[in-house]
């Protein structure tokens, strides 16, 4: 999908559908199979494995407390699949574009800018954690203790705070006070509208009684 607004709409609709019922999850899964390149984030297998274990454990708890554990597992797995697709589709600046498009050059611009900064920080944190793991492995030969992690993570937080302060300084130096002027442009792929309509249809089918 090329139009970020329709990607967001589809993500929200399909997530709601998948969470609402097993049928909704099945239809959302079918949508994912037909409307996306079907790429799984196996290059981040540690994160995938961690999430899988978490979902399995929660599903087991649901089953033990008398609920339908299998249904819960299936629904949450599809929600994560849709989230993974949406994350892979993201492009730099899209949140600023969407914020401005939806809420205008003042509130929308500011909300979009904050969202962009948050996403950028997540990316930075991800890279920092990878480097931290490598440095710990080289230093300790793989033995990571809580005592060694505390200062390492403390420095990571400080680094992130420094970055935020620097970014704030840059905005202030450039004379930023509030809002901004932006004319967002969205490119629409030939099937984007149809895919989004299907996603909304699936949500309506799953949510309507």
């Amino acid at each position, binding site marked *: 999908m090329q139009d970020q607004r329709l990607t967001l709409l589809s993500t929200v609709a399909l997530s709601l559908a998948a969470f609402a019922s097993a049928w909704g999850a099945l239809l959302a899964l079918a949508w994912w199979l037909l409307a996306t390149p079907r790429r799984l984030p196996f290059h981040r297998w540690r994160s995938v494995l961690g999430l899988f274990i978490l979902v399995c454990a929660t599903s087991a708890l649901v089953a033990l407390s008398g609920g339908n554990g299998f249904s819960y597992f299936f629904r949450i797995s599809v929600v994560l699949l849709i989230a993974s697709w949406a994350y892979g589709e993201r492009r730099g600046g899209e949140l600023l574009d969407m914020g401005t498009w939806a809420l205008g050059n003042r509130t929308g611009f500011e909300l979009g800018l904050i969202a962009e900064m948050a996403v950028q920080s997540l990316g930075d944190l991800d890279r920092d954690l990878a*480097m931290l793991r*490598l440095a710990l492995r*080289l*230093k*300790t030969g793989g033995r990571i203790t809580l005592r*060694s992690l*505390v200062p390492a993570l403390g*420095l990571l937080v400080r680094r992130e705070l420094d970055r935020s302060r620097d970014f704030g300084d840059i905005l202030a130096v450039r004379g930023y006070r509030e809002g901004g002027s932006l004319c967002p442009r969205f490119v629409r792929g030939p099937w984007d509208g149809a895919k989004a309509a299907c996603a909304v249809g699936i949500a309506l089918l799953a949510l309507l009684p």
Partner: protein
Amino acid sequence: MRVILDDVIVRRGSFQLTASGTFSKGVHLVTGPVGSGKSTLALALAGALRPVTGQIVEDGIGSRTLALPFPEYHVTGETLEREVASWGLVPAPVLEAAGLSGRGGEDVLRCSQGELKRLVLSCILAREWDLLILDEPCSSLDCAWKEAFARKLGERRKGITILLTHEDEVLPRVDEIWEIQAGRLASLGRVPEAIPRWSRPPRYIRAALDAGALPENITRKDVRDAVCRTRG
């Protein structure tokens, strides 16, 4: 003791680096502009990035480490003393070498990036490594500390040292020069023969070469001596 890059291709995002050659005992300088792939090569040599094709073969390498460009990643001790101890070292001499004597009980979070860099480099250089990889070790250091660091590095006689940098002010004595250009690593050969083949040497070396001098090595002193010899 050697590290062989056997038709290696490493990918990091959309970037691709191709490398072939052998790093043998001594100090190797790997140069290239910012974004040329030096850090990618450093990560691959440290075993943190797996080549998509080819292989990196280590022969006789027992211990190895990589100094990352940002020293914060290495820190695991709450105080400067504990940080040095976490490397298995006695704090006092290392803190002295880092110019941080008498500050052992200080919180590492209070150090500037330059101080942390000095501390981490001093810890790394206080130990013997078969393979020592240094990615931009001079960033955050002032000229005096760059020179002190270059001196220490030039004194290393054991093991393989691979220095990856675009530094062009202060460089140590090296044995071999490598260059990354257009995503490809190539050896320029041993010093001094490699110096005239260097496509982007630091300005002080370029000036000496333009004046017809061939330095024995790449330190400022070597270049000054060569220019003096040329002028008679």
